[in-house]
C-alpha cells in the first residue's frame, strides 16, 4: 500500500517538475540531435489577438453565379491566401477554414494602419492576370479595362511561378520579371511574332497594369513595367507567384486591436489570477486545515499542469482574455472536487470512522457527484466549442482542459498525499481535519451532537 503510494508520489513529482520547467517563462525549449534526428521543440504561449494586438479578418467566399463551392475550392483558396500572407511577411499568421464558406485570418504582426490597408488588399483581389490583345490602342495604366471588348491571349495560369520576381530598370524603378511555362511560351511566341508593332495590355483583376508595344517575338521571358512602388510590385509578384484565388472572397468581419490595450489586459488578468489563487488557497487552509493544505498543493500542481498544456508545442492553446478568465474560473471549480471529498470525509469522521476509513469513503462516495457534475461542464464546453467562433472557442477549450486536469490533481494527487501523510502518523489528530467535537479517531462511534445523523434523522412516527 505505502509502496504503491510512494511510486505514485514519485510520478506526480516528476510530472509536476516537467510542467514547472515548461511553464518557466524563459524556457529554452529542446534543441538537440538524437540518433541523427533533429529535435526542435519550443514551449511558447500563443497569445490571441486581443492580448498581443493585431488584425483579424473573416473572409467569406463570394462565388460567381453558377460557380460551385466545394471543400476543395475552399482548401485551395485557403492555401493561396496562406501563401500570399507568408509572402507579405508578417509574424505568426493563422489561417483557418471556418464552416463551409469562410476563412479566418489572424495576423498579430499587422499593427500600423499602412500595414492594415496593404493586408486587406491581399484578400480583396483575386489576382487574375490577363494578357489582352488591344490591337493598336494602348489603354492608360491604373484604369479598368472594359470587360469583353478585347480578346485575352493568355492568363496567369501559364505563368511559371519560379520565374516571377521584382527587378529594377536603369532608373531604379521597380518592375516585374516573369516567365512562361512550355504551353504559355509557345502561344506567346506565336502571338508576339504575328503582332509586332501592336499593343499587348497586361491586366490584373480588370485593371490595366501596363500596355507595352510588341517590338519583337518573345518566347518565355518578359518584363512588366508600370508606375509601381516597391511594395506594390512585391504584392503583385506575390499574386502572380501563388496564383489566382479559385473563388472570389469578401471581408465580412474585421477586428483590429492595438497592442497597448492587450498588454494592459494581460498584466491585470495575471495579477487577478495570482490574487484569486492566493485567496482560494488561504480559504481552503483555514476551512479544511490539513486536507486544505494538501488541496492547495494539488491546486498549485493543477495550475502548473494546465499552463504547461497551454504551451504544448503540437496544438498550443491560443490564450485569449476570455481564455484566461476561463482558466481562473476553472481554479475555483477545480477546488470543488476537493471540497466534495473533504465534506464527505468530515461526515464519515463524525460518524466515528477511523481516519483511514473516512479518507477512503470520502473519495469513493464523492466520485459519483464529481463525475456527473464534471461531465455536465464538459457538455457545456463542447456546445460552446461547436457553436462559438475564435474567442468563445478559446474559452471553452481552456475550461474543458481545466476540468480534465483538475480530475487528476483533485483525486490522484490529493489522495496519494493524504494516504502517505496518514501512514507517517503525522495526521492522526482530527482537529487537523477541521472536525470539532471528535477527539480521537477511535474505532467506536462518537458523534458530533449538533450534526444530523443519517441513522437517526428520521425518528419513527414523525
Amino acid at each position, binding site marked *: 500500500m505505502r509502496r504503491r503510494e510512494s511510486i505514485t508520489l514519485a510520478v506526480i513529482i516528476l510530472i509536476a517538475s516537467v510542467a514547472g520547467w515548461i511553464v518557466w517563462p524563459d524556457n529554452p525549449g529542446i534543441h538537440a540531435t538524437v540518433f541523427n534526428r533533429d529535435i526542435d521543440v519550443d514551449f511558447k504561449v500563443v497569445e490571441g489577438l486581443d492580448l498581443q494586438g493585431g488584425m483579424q479578418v*473573416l473572409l467569406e467566399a463570394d462565388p460567381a453565379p453558377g460557380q460551385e463551392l466545394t471543400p476543395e475550392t475552399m482548401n485551395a483558396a485557403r492555401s493561396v491566401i496562406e501563401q500570399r500572407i507568408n509572402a507579405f511577411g508578417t509574424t505568426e499568421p493563422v489561417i483557418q477554414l471556418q464552416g463551409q464558406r469562410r476563412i479566418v485570418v489572424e495576423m498579430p504582426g499587422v499593427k500600423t*494602419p499602412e500595414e*492594415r*490597408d496593404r493586408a*486587406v488588399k491581399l484578400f480583396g483581389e483575386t489576382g487574375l492576370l490577363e494578357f489582352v490583345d488591344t490591337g493598336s490602342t494602348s489603354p492608360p495604366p491604373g484604369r479598368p479595362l472594359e470587360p469583353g471588348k478585347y480578346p485575352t491571349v493568355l492568363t496567369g495560369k501559364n505563368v511559371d511561378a519560379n520565374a516571377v520576381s521584382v527587378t529594377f530598370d536603369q532608373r531604379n524603378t521597380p518592375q516585374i520579371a516573369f516567365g512562361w511555362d512550355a504551353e504559355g511560351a509557345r502561344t506567346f511566341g506565336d502571338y508576339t511574332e504575328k503582332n509586332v508593332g501592336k499593343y499587348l495590355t497586361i491586366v490584373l483583376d480588370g485593371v490595366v497594369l501596363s500596355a507595352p508595344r510588341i517590338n519583337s517575338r518573345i518566347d518565355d521571358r518578359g518584363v512588366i513595367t508600370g508606375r509601381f512602388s516597391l511594395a506594390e510590385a512585391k504584392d503583385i509578384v506575390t499574386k502572380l507567384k501563388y496564383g489566382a484565388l479559385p473563388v472570389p472572397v469578401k*471581408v*465580412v*468581419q*474585421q*477586428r483590429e*486591436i*492595438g497592442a*497597448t*490595450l492587450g498588454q*494592459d*489586459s494581460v498584466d*491585470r*488578468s495575471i*495579477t*487577478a*489570477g495570482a490574487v*484569486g*489563487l492566493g*485567496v*482560494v488557497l488561504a*480559504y481552503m487552509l483555514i476551512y479544511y486545515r490539513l486536507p486544505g493544505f494538501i488541496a492547495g498543493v494539488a491546486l498549485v500542481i493543477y495550475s502548473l499542469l494546465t499552463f504547461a498544456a497551454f504551451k504544448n508545442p503540437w496544438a498550443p492553446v491560443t490564450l485569449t*482574455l*476570455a481564455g484566461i*478568465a476561463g482558466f*481562473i*474560473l476553472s481554479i*475555483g*471549480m477545480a*477546488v*470543488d472536487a476537493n*471540497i*466534495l471529498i473533504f*465534506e464527505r470525509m468530515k*461526515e464519515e469522521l463524525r460518524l466515528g470512522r477511523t481516519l483511514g476509513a473516512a479518507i477512503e469513503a470520502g473519495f469513493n*462516495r464523492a466520485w*459519483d*457527484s464529481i463525475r*456527473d*457534475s464534471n*461531465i*455536465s461542464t464538459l*457538455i*457545456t464546453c463542447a*456546445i*460552446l466549442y*461547436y*457553436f*462559438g*467562433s475564435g474567442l*468563445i472557442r478559446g474559452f471553452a477549450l481552456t*475550461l474543458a482542459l481545466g476540468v480534465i486536469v483538475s480530475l487528476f490533481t483533485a483525486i490522484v494527487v490529493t489522495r496519494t498525499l493524504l494516504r502517505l501523510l496518514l501512514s507517517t502518523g503525522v495526521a492522526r489528530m482530527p482537529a487537523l481535519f477541521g472536525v470539532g467535537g471528535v477527539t480521537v479517531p477511535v474505532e467506536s462511534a462518537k458523534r458530533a451532537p449538533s450534526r*444530523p445523523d*443519517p441513522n437517526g*434523522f*428520521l425518528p419513527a412516527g414523525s
Partner: protein
Amino acid sequence: MFDIIGRRNIYFLISGLMILPGLIGLAIWGLKLGIDFTGGSLVEVRLGSNPASAQVRSVFVDAGLTDVSVITGSTTDALGKTYLIRTKTIDAGTKSDLLAKLGSAYGPLTEDRFESVGPVIGRETATNAFLAVIGASVLILLYLSYAFRQVPNPWRYGACAVFALLHDVVLVVGLWSILGRLFGLEVDALFVTAILTVVGFSVHDTIVVFDRIRENVSRFPGEMFERIVNFSVNQTLDRSINTSLTVILTLTALLLLGGATIRGFVLVLLVGIVSGTYSSIFNASCLLVVWENGELGQLLGRLLPAKPVVATTP
C-alpha cells in the same frame, strides 16, 4: 437541520421577486445588443486634444453615416481621452478616411481598436447563441436522465435541473436588460459565453444535490421523499456554499483587478453563479418534491399572493 423543503413556497416566491424586475426590464427595454449581433462597426481611438463627444460624432455624421454613437472613456492618459465610436458597418478604407479627418481636426490620434461585423454574421451569432443554450439544455437533460436511470422518473431530475438553469439564465438576462438601460452594458459574444458558463455551473451544483438524493433514496427505502430531499440538501449545504465561495472569490479578484474589457463578462458570471447556487439549493430540489408529490398543478395557484400559503409538511 434547516427545513428548506417545507418552506419551499417562500423560496419560490423569492425567486419570483428576483426575476420579476428583469422580466419587466426585458419587456420594456429589451436587450442592448452589441455589434456582434446587430452587425456594425466599432472604432476605439484616443485623441490628444480631448474634444467633446458631439464634436467627434459630427465628423462621422458629416461623412453621411447614420446611427453614429460616441462614448467617451473614463480614463485619460498621455495620448488623450478614449472614444468609442459605433456606426453601421463600414470597411477599412472608409474608416481610414474618417480617422484621417478626425486626426487632423482633434489629433494626434491613436487607433486602438477597429471591429467591423457584417449584418449576416451578426444574425448568425444571435442564432448560434440561442441554439447553444437550447442544445446545452437538451444534452444535459438527456445526460441526467441517463445518470439517474436507477431512480423512479429519472427524467424529472433532468427537467428540474434544466428548470433551475433556465431560472439563472432568465435572471441574468433580465438583470442585463436593466444594466443595459442604466449603464449602457451591451450583449456581445462574451456575454453568451458567460451565460453558458453559468449554465454549466448551475447544473454542476444541482447535480451534487441530486446525487445525494439518489444515494439516500436507496439507503432509506420507504421514507417520505420530501424528508429525504430535505436531508440531502442539508448534507450538501456546506459543500455548495464553499464551492460557490471559492468561485466567487476568484471572480471578485478578476472583477476588481482584471482589465476593463472583461468586466461585464465577469459580472455576468458572478451574478449567475450566486443565482446558480441559490437555484440548486432552493429551487431544483423543491421543484422535484413538488413534482413527485403530484402538486405541480396546485403550485401555480399557490404562488398567487392573494391566497394564503399553507405548508403541506406533516
